């Protein structure tokens, strides 16, 4: 089906090869998982197979699908055979209604409306969105959008389906749903499936082979995985707990007539690490933005270092609360890495002299005069955190810091969290990755529909969540 021989690829304008001497052949109906650190060439390989990189770089060797040389075909000839589902559910949907989206590809192929409707019904049912036809795209959650994307590719009946990290933007409940969908497709069709994924745990009995990639090369192809111990960094010692810096009492927050948070009470002491979990839309980000004073309580109060946020302006609060947002692109403002690190201190009027030291800590020292634009996703994330560190806030908030990060980066961030904790900082992080929670002993807070369901130690949280059937949030 897919035949890749001595295949190398480098993008125009880049010296280094993104893919080097790839040899891989995939049989019809096979289920392949591709795994590897970020920047190892996984996505490039997927895009090459999909025919998207023709004319975008230089290649050598051959890449054939059913004997057709992919690089000499028009994209749409390949698209009839290969369907691709990408990481970001938001960006890959181009119409406003579910029906239009799922029909989009078939309409482009000039299939008569009657036939489209038949296929639409069939594939929407397979993916589990049979009632969604007339739904507005804006009303869907991330997981639902991803299902729409899957249905819209499935409707074109490709022979090969590629999933490029389909769940990295989703919460554990939605993640499980997507993998259930993939397994359904595997059961009901004979499509060849390639999944690029870090979360191998979800794919247990589905795959035939796992391809491990490293720096553009295939390092290893194996038939059965050995159970891997995630994250060697596991700091269990109970550190010093100082005075309370965050005090939230009976916080209820309403926006546009909807109650988003209700009756939240929480207090955090110096040297404490809190992990907040919950589905997308459960109010996690809204709660955290209260710490910055961007939102203020409708009822109740939020006190940061003793002061009611209603009486302090955002710029003063942000001096003490360092906040790293989800999307790295939304929080990088300057033209060079060095300037970016100085952005906060300049605004706050802080005398900032340990820039080099921080760049060193986050392994960014080689990039100080580079544009942040040229950094990889993982490096951008490190830059976000380094920029917050530059202002040395007492409270550090990390909203989904581990999304899209490979194991190396994740460990670096975890180590840093524990170092800051020892210095008496408060660190709050939101994470969807069950591997992280399972490998640590942080205090955990579970939010559901704007309410605290449980707040406590891992052991107790796990057992309560299991009773409520939210076990997706933890491993095994």
């Amino acid at each position, binding site marked *: 089906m897919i035949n890749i021989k001595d295949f190398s690829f480098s993008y125009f304008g880049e010296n280094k090869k993104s893919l080097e001497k790839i040899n891989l052949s995939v049989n019809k109906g096979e289920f392949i998982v591709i795994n590897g650190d970020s920047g190892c060439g996984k996505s490039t390989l997927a895009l090459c197979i999909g025919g998207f990189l023709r004319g975008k770089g230089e290649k050598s060797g051959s890449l054939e699908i059913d004997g057709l040389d992919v690089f000499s075909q028009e994209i749409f000839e390949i698209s009839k055979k290969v369907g691709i589902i990408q990481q970001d559910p938001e960006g890959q949907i181009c119409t406003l209604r579910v029906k239009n989206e799922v029909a989009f590809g078939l309409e482009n192929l000039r299939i008569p409306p009657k036939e489209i409707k038949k296929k639409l019904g069939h594939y929407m049912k397979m993916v589990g969105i049979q009632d969604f036809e007339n739904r507005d795209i804006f009303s869907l959650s991330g997981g639902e959008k991803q299902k729409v994307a899957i249905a819209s590719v499935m409707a074109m009946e490709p022979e090969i389906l590629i999933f490029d990290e389909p769940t990295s933007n989703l919460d554990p409940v939605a993640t499980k749903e997507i993998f259930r969908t993939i397994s359904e497709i595997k059961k009901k069709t004979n499509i060849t499936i390639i999944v690029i994924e870090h979360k191998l745990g979800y794919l247990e009995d589905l795959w035939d082979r796992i391809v491990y990639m490293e720096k553009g090369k295939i390092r290893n192809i194996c038939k059965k995985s050995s159970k891997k111990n995630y994250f060697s960094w596991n700091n269990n010692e109970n550190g010093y707990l100082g005075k309370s810096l965050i005090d939230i009492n009976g916080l209820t927050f309403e926006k546009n007539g909807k109650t988003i948070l209700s009756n939240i009470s929480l207090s955090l002491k110096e040297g404490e690490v809190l992990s907040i979990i919950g589905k997308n839309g459960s109010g996690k980000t809204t709660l955290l933005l209260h710490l910055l004073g961007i939102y203020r309580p409708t009822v109740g109060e939020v006190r940061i270092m003793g002061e009611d946020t209603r009486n302090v302006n955002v710029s003063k609060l942000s001096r003490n609360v360092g906040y790293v947002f989800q999307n790295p692109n939304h*929080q*990088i403002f300057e033209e060079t890495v060095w300037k970016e690190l100085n952005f906060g201190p300049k605004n706050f009027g802080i005398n900032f002299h340990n820039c080099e030291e921080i760049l060193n800590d986050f392994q960014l020292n080689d990039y100080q005069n580079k544009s942040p634009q040229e950094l990889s996703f993982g490096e951008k994330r490190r830059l976000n955190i380094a920029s917050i560190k530059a202002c040395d806030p007492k409270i550090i908030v990390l909203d989904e810091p581990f999304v899209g990060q490979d194991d190396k980066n994740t460990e670096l961030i975890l180590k840093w969290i524990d170092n800051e904790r020892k210095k008496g900082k408060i660190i709050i992080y939101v994470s969807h990755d069950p591997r992280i929670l399972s490998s640590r002993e942080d205090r955990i807070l579970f939010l559901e529909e704007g309410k605290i369901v449980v707040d406590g130690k891992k052991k107790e949280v796990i057992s309560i969540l299991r009773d409520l059937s939210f076990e997706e949030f933890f491993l095994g």
Partner: protein
Amino acid sequence: MIKYIEKESFLHRINPISKIVILFIFAYSLFLFNYWEIEVLALVSVLFLYVVSGIGLSKIEGKKFFITFSLSLFIINVLFIREGDAILNSGIIKITTNGIEFAIFSVARFLAIVFSSFLFVMTTEPNKLAYSLMQAGIPYRYGFTLVVALRFVPTFQFETGNVRNAQAARGLSVDKISIKSLYMMARYTFIPLIRSTMQYIDTLTVSMEGRCFGAYDTRTYIEEVGYGKKDVALLILSVIFLIGIIYQRFGQNLF
């Protein structure tokens, strides 16, 4: 912002293309006549349609602006037109019947055109407009430019909010508004938004090309935007109306 409001009225159901044609004929005909009575009648009819379509007059935004602007327009006309029978004449200020009639005429015409356009926007689902334009023969590449733009408007609104929050978190003050802070905010909002737009473009390109967008010159549509008898009837009626008023206006010279 003036935007589409979902309701079940005959105005909502008219095919968007018929509606555009009618809107243009309506606006054009307002310019053909120089009687203030007709302009006022037109304005009253438009306001009547607001009520009938279930939109309601309260949905017209920027009332303050329209009232001030209309009043200024009225006063300027009254003061500067000095021909006709004087109602009041005190040397500097001379108010004439011509002046008042022309003032009413200008204000009514201005409001009729603006409010009818608003009504069009509020009763036409943009998505339906794009699809009906494509089905009427506009190349689908242009049509989808509109669809994709509509698709991403809420996304960018949301992202702008995120960027503002991230700025605040890094000490770019949003508490005080000065020219400098506005400049800084514009500059530091623009850069991150461009960056995330680029990312969306990459994803969207793969997603659309991967589903054969642009493979052929034409495409099919799962559903036709309805073009019923009423739409045709309305279209014919409004064209007859147009011919009628053109004849009325220029008839003597045409034949």
